[in-house]
């Protein structure tokens, strides 16, 4: 047993110029040889290619044009690319890290990720979770990064059984966590808008 614990460093807003540090291209200059970005796939990645696209709205219905989002997700088999994922019955995909970072467009507020649809991950007590993507959102005016999840509109049966969606007492609020599948000329798209405040406010988690 331990006698003392340290305390987590306090959060502060990422501010309006978060791009300088986390996405310098978007800030308007080139500095690093290797940039982290919104494309999670390469030619060898296994799984169904999808795009996740949407906007983040404030309490007046105005899209945030200075927001930064990160996603973290399992591979097509439902396993995370991380040493502590012990679902050894599922295969790893060394062409898929499972993490990406995107900024909204300074004019339209649209963000987008190019990724694959994840497989289901085993949750607590062996209960299967429906396929989902974990999101983390920071911006000017957001004091502590917001955690949420995107589920898939074409996984109705799995969503109904999902242990996390079922924690949301008001069924109507669960709809705010569903990305809506659309087929476009470029491929499959999931539309996922996030509402920070007010009507249809997205569910956020204290993880």
């Amino acid at each position, binding site marked *: 047993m331990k006698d003392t614990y340290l305390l987590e460093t306090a*959060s*502060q807003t990422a501010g309006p110029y978060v791009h300088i*540090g986390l996405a310098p291209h978007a800030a308007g200059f080139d500095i690093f040889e290797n940039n982290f970005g919104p494309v999670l796939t390469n030619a060898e990645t296994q799984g169904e290619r999808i795009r996740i696209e949407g906007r983040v709205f404030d309490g007046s219905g105005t899209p945030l044009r200075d927001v930064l989002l990160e996603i973290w997700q399992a591979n097509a088999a439902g396993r995370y690319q991380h*040493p502590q994922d012990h679902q050894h019955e599922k295969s790893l995909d060394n062409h898929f890290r499972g993490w990406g970072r995107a900024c909204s467009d300074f004019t339209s507020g649209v963000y987008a990720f190019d990724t694959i649809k994840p497989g289901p991950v085993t949750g607590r007590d*062996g209960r299967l979770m429906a396929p989902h993507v974990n999101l983390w959102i920071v911006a000017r005016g957001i004091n502590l990064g917001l955690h949420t999840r995107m589920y898939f509109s074409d996984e109705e049966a799995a969503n109904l059984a999902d242990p*996390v969606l079922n924690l*949301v007492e008001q069924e109507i609020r669960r709809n705010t966590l569903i990305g809506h599948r659309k087929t476009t000329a470029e491929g499959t798209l999931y539309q996922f808008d996030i509402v920070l405040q007010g009507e249809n406010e997205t569910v*956020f988690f204290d993880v």
Partner: protein
Amino acid sequence: MSSSELYQRNRDRHPPAYSPEYKSSVLRSPRNAPISLQNSLSEITGPVFTSNELGPLDNDLILNYAKQGMPIGERIIVHGYVRDENGQPMRNTLVEVWQANAGGRYRHKKDQYLAPIDPNFGGCGRMLTDDKGYYVFRTIKPGPYPWRNRVNDWRPAHIHFSLSGDAFAQRLITQMYFEGDPLLAQCPIVRSINDDDAVRSLISVLDKSASVQLDSLAYRFDLVLRGHRATLFENRLQGKA
């Protein structure tokens, strides 16, 4: 790296989402309470980074954008340790930093402050912590910066920090301030934190011993990420059905 769940985040130590003195938070703060989630694999895992993804000058803000000479301003070293709440080193954590130049001007297409851009200063850097959780970078001390909150609000000198941790639930963005800055007590963003000890933990201290004689002063800044709870009794967190 532990496989167990994390300690609950102590939200009293963090600024509340709605802090009206910081005006942008008014329309950007959820009105509903966040829903508490016990950790699953989705929260206790997170992206792993490797040193070959970073460049040799990525942690040297004095040289990583120098074009025709060196940037103008106070040359400083910033260093410290990243630990978890158990006091254990956070190894291989991605630390990303960004800041204004010596005059308080950001290299960002949206920054219109009349203080000039420094042609030899970019203002961002990144590094991975070593086996002891240690990080170090070199930079120019940033200047204070006016912003449109109340009409005469000024940010204290600060450097933004982003830390990856080894779990997505440890993800943290914060700001580092400088010991003795009189603007700290007036800043609505700093004052959004209601815990004096938590504010103090964001203030770096002058570290003369680590300064380089006739070259650079140094500041020491340690950070703490959420710790893993020891698994005393196993209840199949990870689906070992």
